[in-house]
């Protein structure tokens, strides 16, 4: 039997920020990664492959959002075996992906440990059927607790864990819809913002909603539209900042 095909060495790494928007928020992470690999082929990106008998394109993903959650701040990194123009590659790849899966930004990787930099996420949650007073009451009730146990269904049964510890900020957004369009004639709705530290167990937006239900019985009347607005290091004032900054220097 032949020896495995020897792969060309990696000469460049690119980091992308991408978005999952609108209907395509229902794309699962597996779906996205298959679509991205096909886009790499269509855009003829000189992607490097892993060695071995079944080589894989060298793409690494960080902290994918759950299926059904929109995002303006997902991150991935690719390894190339030819040096290319990052912006040109971004544009070609973006054109090869469906509208709604959009590559927003690219930097050439100049620093190690990118994934560790994604310390926290800024989430936006549109709660339908909830007014501002109820939302603010629920937030106060949550923030005074030091621990709020929630339950999540997993393959191996129900898992119980604390959702409060990871929440470093939670407030009602005062400046309106921002990135999320809201139908004009629906029931009242309120927009929450939350800063949640990425960690283990990871506290997801639905865990945050579960925690609000536990402490204040908050129950939106239709599914909550959730968007990840940002992901990155937490600065001293508790804000999520751009994880690409070190690569830009």
């Amino acid at each position: 039997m032949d020896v495995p095909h020897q792969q060309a060495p990696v000469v460049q790494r690119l980091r992308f920020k991408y978005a999952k928007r609108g209907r395509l928020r229902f794309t699962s992470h597996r779906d996205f990664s298959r679509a991205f690999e096909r886009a790499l082929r269509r855009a003829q990106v000189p992607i490097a492959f892993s060695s071995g008998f079944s080589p894989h394109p060298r793409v690494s993903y960080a902290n994918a959002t759950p299926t059904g959650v929109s995002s303006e701040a997902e991150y991935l990194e690719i390894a190339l075996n030819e040096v290319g123009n990052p912006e040109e590659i971004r544009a070609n790849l973006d054109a090869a992906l469906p509208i709604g899966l959009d590559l927003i930004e690219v930097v050439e990787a100049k620093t190690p440990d990118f994934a560790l930099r994604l310390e926290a996420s800024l989430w936006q949650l549109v709660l339908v059927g909830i007014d501002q007073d109820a939302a603010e009451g629920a937030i106060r009730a949550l923030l005074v607790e030091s621990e709020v146990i929630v339950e999540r269904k997993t393959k191996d049964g129900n898992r119980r864990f604390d959702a409060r510890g990871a929440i470093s900020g939670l407030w009602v957004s005062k400046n309106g819809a921002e990135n999320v369009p809201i139908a004009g004639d629906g029931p009242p709705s309120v927009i929450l913002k939350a800063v949640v530290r990425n960690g283990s167990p990871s506290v997801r937006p639905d865990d945050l909603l579960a925690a609000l239900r536990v402490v204040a019985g908050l129950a939106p009347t239709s599914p909550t539209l959730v968007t990840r607005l940002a992901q990155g290091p937490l600065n001293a004032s508790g804000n999520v900042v751009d994880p690409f900054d070190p690569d830009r220097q």
Partner: protein
Amino acid sequence: MRSLWSELEPLLPRVSKPIQYVGGELNSCVKDWDSSDVRWALMYPDAYEVGLPNQGVMILYEVLNEMDGVLAERTYAIWPDLEKLMRENGVPQFTVDGHRSVADFDLLGISFSTELGYTNMLSALDLANIPLAAVERTLEHPIVIAGGHAAFNPEPISDFIDCAVLGDGEEAVIKITKVVREWKAAGRPGGRDGVLERLAAAGGIYVPRFYDVEYLVDGRIKRIAPNRPNVPFRVSKHTVMDLDEWPYPKQPLVPLAETVHERMSVEIFRGCTRGCRFCQAGMITRPVRERSITGIAEMVQRGLDATGFAEVGLLSLSSADHSEIGEIAKGLADRYEGSNVGLSLPSTRVDAFNVDLANELTRNGRRSGLTFAPEGGSERMRQVINKMVTEDDLINTVRTAYQNGWRQVKLYFMCGLPTEQDDDVLQIAVLAKRVIDAGRQATGGKDIRCTVSIGGFVPKPHTPFQWAAQCDHETVDHRLKILRAAVQSDRRYSKNIGFRYHDGKPSIIEGLLSRGDRRVGKVILTAWQRGQRFDGWSEHFSYDRWALAAADVFNETPISLDWFTTRQRLENEVLPWDHLDSGLDKEWLWSDWQEALAGGEVDDCRWSPCFDCGVCPSMGTEIQIGPTGRSMPLLAISPLATSGVVLESLAHS
């Protein structure tokens, strides 16, 4: 036309795999509703993950959308979790392209690769608020058209469909579109019957309600005849003669969701003349029509550019039989040299040439598994089904495969074939052990495997076995049980032989739906009303529900589930599909059935004289094969870096 998206969207976070309902696949399109005058909804009546890769729907979707003023959108079977929410919230069956209500289209075309989609059709009609009974529909409702292989006997669903199209769809949908356009432009004269009469008169379109069926007291059919003028006594099938003129799909759909085929397919020929007597696909798609080597090369290149897929399947009923397959395999392997993709070779022909092809296509990839389909366990059985391969052929072929670095051989068989005895099935175990011996010998004792897959045989219309008694499920299950014991009894082999099979019960229901007549429609309706759907999925299929529905419907009649399945038919019996013309001569089918019982074999007419199956004269044509003598030039531009080519078999997928 309004989009249902805003009503559907809030339901999607609550269902599994919501992406399948979203649409927006690469190469899909949404045309303007108001500037189209003929609008088709195309359905594959199974889950999206099975339906999306279906070549038939993909081809028709593209052919129709290329026409001016014509719009085609797709719809698939909806899983019970979303169906429940849609019913609670009043959301009707929708298309995934424009999320428009299926009921608002002019035509609803449903492609039946198998009869197991019948209950899903009823779910879709009901969710669409289209009356299940065709006779209750008005001008407000779409014309419901069945196509696909199962449409060669649409009698069991004749209550629910308005018409059926036999054979290739490419030209047929254009013809139907033209008839409907003219009828609409003329102010819909004659109403619903008016357009159906025009379709029936156009040829190749069967309108069940224009035919009456009379029965004998013993339950058999007495006669089937048209009940109005200008309706033909026999309806013939459509046949596309030059595949190079129809290089579809040009822009294959690429889903975001995971589906059963993560690759692009190019159909390299249509039809098959091998003459395997159990194979309906091989019989009803005659004559053989090859796509040329240059046509194939163009479709592969264009498709890869349009999709970004990493694999191309060369699709047909027996791909190694293309007259220029050696050149095609070498040409594609040369073109796409430098592949980074592991390849498989789902092909079925049992000979050394097939191994050569597989080697060529995996030149720089991994050699994992090779598949062969001897179909019958014993030499005698293979003579009965006209699968002309000896045990020594098979052993020599697998030896070559193991010698060439393949580590796993898969073998397909059927159980319950006509005249089969226990010993014929037990011979599969003997064969599997010989395969392992040959592999150990060839590789010097390496870790090799042989997987034996067994399907239950279902006699199908328009084949020489259409008269055969289907084997009862108790017998099939018994034979599978003693075979498994025989494989597992010998520890020197049992860990190298895998054994995959299904129990015999689903085949009996498939048999009822395959060879049933109009009276089976009530059974389908009853089973569906009692919750039956997704019959191709073992977690949803219930034999007991089907059997009870049949018992209730056929109560105090001479017919029964057994009557339709395990009863052998005689030569003079009027079969429910006798008025539907696949081109095959019924007398030839009968003589081939008699030949089967005598163990006689029939050659492939591509390489030996005509044996008068009847197709070519009845269609005024002949088989269309090469070699063309043309060759596939290397590409001037560098090809996509990561592509592979796979041979694929339609008959066993």
